[in-house]
């Protein structure tokens, strides 16, 4: 790697080489039985250069001649953006020294063991109801990252992930009930029982369909659905959106926007969370970045280039969306702090309202404005403090920036979603709900 970099630096001022190598193995069950086993191996290189003050970038997978990558990176630098940063000279962690993201037991887990996990989940679900369709994926992933730049920065780490995901489907006449749930971790410590008991509880609640009338009503977003409200805010806190003045939150730093209850941060240092790593994808130490504290925006998040343009420092959020992408501002893990009220107390508090558990169309539409509008793919009606059944053909809509001003309470038990978001239940005083007549 070092040799390659020396070769590049004959032609440009400075350069950075990022290499990723991974092996992902999903074991797939379809319609209650083992269907396929896949092995995805991949490796690639990405080269970013600063040439006469401008950025060039090129990437490659496979066995291409390195000269060709260099040639393309240099060619793109002719038109590239003016670099507003230098590659980091030092890649050393100053805070928490070791971030655990690698578990040898994941690497050593055999395919046979993974098959067994899936079979056990299916048996457990069949014990509850034999007639439903269950699709299950048990997946493990192992990644090696290597980074080196010509200013002296360099690091490497290995990372693991394991995922159990279950889809349960019940069809009656033309009604389909679909419940999806998954567990993710960097460590081989997942408990399938957590999954199956959640799905069984949801199947029980969803057994009966009950009508709901259009109007404004109190709602509870489960941790699984909370992204509906949080995603538009994450997008508005992105340093690039702020720099370009596209974000409606751009001028709101240090101003009180939301309830005292709302505090959240980006944190890439949590052991075995899927977004964690010692460094971001351009050699800046990952850390905990407070984004919102007691309803006030405290920070936007940045990569090196955007931070340089904005005249601030990188927050260690320069992430690549794959080997073909340059680093851009991204969220490592996002944690919304818990409140004090349990889910069952929230339900008891509502005389008429709904619980939103799964939506369709997440991230669709004009996200940056804060607007959301989603079909409630899985939701439950609350009447007089009790869940009475499942709702159907219902939509919710609003503007996340506005709706989060109406938080009544946050749940006392936050849950990891997708391995990188940790959300509590969010109870809103009122939200617009549209239903079929």
């Amino acid at each position, binding site marked *: 790697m070092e040799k390659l970099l020396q070769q590049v630096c004959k032609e440009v001022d400075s350069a950075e080489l990022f290499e990723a190598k991974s092996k992902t193995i999903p074991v797939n069950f379809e319609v209650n039985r083992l269907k396929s*086993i896949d092995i995805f*191996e991949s490796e690639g290189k990405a080269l970013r250069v600063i040439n006469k003050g401008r950025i060039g970038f090129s990437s490659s997978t496979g066995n291409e001649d390195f000269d060709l990558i260099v040639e393309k990176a240099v060619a793109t630098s002719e038109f590239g953006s003016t670099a507003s940063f230098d590659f980091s000279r030092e890649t050393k962690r100053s805070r928490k020294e070791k971030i655990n993201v690698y578990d040898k037991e994941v690497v050593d887990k055999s395919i046979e063991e993974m098959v067994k996990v899936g079979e056990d989940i299916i048996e457990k679900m069949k014990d509850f109801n034999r007639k439903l*369709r269950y699709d299950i994926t048990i997946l493990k992933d192992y990644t090696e990252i290597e980074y080196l730049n010509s200013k002296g920065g360099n690091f490497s780490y290995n990372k693991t992930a394991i995922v159990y995901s279950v889809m349960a489907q019940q069809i009656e006449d033309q009604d389909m009930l679909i419940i999806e749930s998954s567990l993710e971790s960097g460590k081989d410590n997942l408990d399938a029982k957590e999954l199956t008991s959640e799905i069984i509880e949801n199947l029980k609640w969803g057994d009966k369909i009950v009508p709901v009338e259009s109007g404004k009503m109190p709602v509870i977003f489960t941790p699984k659905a909370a992204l509906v409200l949080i995603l538009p805010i994450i997008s508005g806190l992105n340093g690039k959106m702020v720099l*370009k003045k*596209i974000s409606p939150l751009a001028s709101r730093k240090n101003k009180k926007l939301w309830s005292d209850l709302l505090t959240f941060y980006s944190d890439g240092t949590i052991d075995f969370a899927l977004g964690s790593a010692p460094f971001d994808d351009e050699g800046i130490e990952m850390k905990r970045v407070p984004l919102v504290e007691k309803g006030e925006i405290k920070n936007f998040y940045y990569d090196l280039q955007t931070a340089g343009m904005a005249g601030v420092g990188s927050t260690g959020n320069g992430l690549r969306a794959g080997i073909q992408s340059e680093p851009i501002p991204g969220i490592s893990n996002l944690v919304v702090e818990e409140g004090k009220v349990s889910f069952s107390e929230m339900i008891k508090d509502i005389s008429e309202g709904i619980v939103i558990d799964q939506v369709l169309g997440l991230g669709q539409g*004009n996200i940056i404005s804060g607007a959301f*509008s989603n*079909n409630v793919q899985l939701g439950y009606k609350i009447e007089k403090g009790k869940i009475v059944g499942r709702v159907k053909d219902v939509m919710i809509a609003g503007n996340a920036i506005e709706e989060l001003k109406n938080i009544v309470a946050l749940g006392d038990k936050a849950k990891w979603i997708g391995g990188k978001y940790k959300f509590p239940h969010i109870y809103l005083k009122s939200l617009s709900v*549209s239903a079929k007549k």
Partner: protein
Amino acid sequence: MREIFEKALKNRKNSADYIEIRAEKKEATTIHFQGEKLEKINCSQQAGGNVRALVKGGWGFVSFNQFDDLEEKVREAIKVASLIGKEESKLAVISPVVEIINRELDKDFRQISLREKKDLMENYNNIIMKSNPLIQSSNVIYSDRFSTIYFANSEGSYVEQEKPFLSARFTAIAREEDNVQMANETVGSTKGFGIMEKISTKAQRAAFRAINLLKAQPVEGGEYTVILDQTLGGVFIHEAFGHLSEADFLYEDERMSGLMKLGKKFGSPKLNVVDDGSTPDLLGSAKYDDEGVRTKKNYLIKDGILAGRLHSRETAAKMGEEPTGNARALNYRFKPIVRMTNTYVENGDTPFKDLLSGIKKGIYAKDCYGGMTTFETFTFSAGEGFMIRDGEITDPVKDVVLSGNLFTTLLNIEGVGNDLKMIESGGGCGKAGQNPLPVSWGSPHLRIKKVVVGGR
């Protein structure tokens, strides 16, 4: 490539019921302007491949970037497939083909200099940025790629296909204080660079629409009669209905296949829906699919009756139907699964103005931000919306998201226009993590009653 593939297949044929090898070589360019700045310009090369093996009904799959030891990959795929297989393998019978398909482009984008591409996109970006002081920012994203796909299987097929693709996406972002609105225009093609040279009206339109959205009121939620334009009609038929026609959802699921029984009434006799991968040079077109099956025109709904569905070789065999040429893989990292190609609603006979007449309070929904479906429930977002009052198109509305149950909504289509347009956008279709797969869609204007629209 053929020799390497055949060598790897030769000694292994007897240890699996079926084996196939795929490889892909690709070069790609991306240019991205955001606001006044060139945000990104990059070139990439990709090479990779995969092996898929079928043993007693179980599939093993290995994808990789390193071709050093292809025989070892074949062994690995067979090994994991053997862990599954407990029954009989079933694949629809097709005759082996050997064919090399090259594409001659009128103005090959590989021959156009990076500077020329950049200058052209800069020009479009300037059109957007300078069109109105309320335009706050923009995204102009150009991308092109030229792939060659190599395929061989243990039955003696060998197919090489060249697949060019280029697209441009224009986003205009308008802002008035806290009100931020955006509008997209896209174009996609499998042909030469020429198409990129004459799309300045698209850039103007993106800016114009974003500015108009600043004035639009949020739509009031409720149940409406809606008219979908050709883009949204196409997205609707793709998202809501097309995905349910993909036999991999059905073939092992009795209840699902019961819902999708051929011969069942799905709509009025005016409704005809087609998927056709054999139309030359549309985004979803290819002579052979990724299992080496010849593509063709398939009726999904004929005169309102469910007439067919989309198959891979496995789903066709298991359902006792003919293969349709719809097994497609996004790229070498993925295995082929059942996908749409070019999907559209055929023309009816109602002119646009007759579709409008008689609607007291409805919505005219145009263009699309995106759509999603899980089985029978769909949702999609219009890029632009207008209220219809007493048969006239009136004030603009924003954040229009339509949702419903597929089966009832298809039956609620009460008017089919006579102005079919195929839409080739730069986006694509997503399924099982394979996104965006190039597809095209189209429709004449459609009038649908009782659609739920979300709103504040």
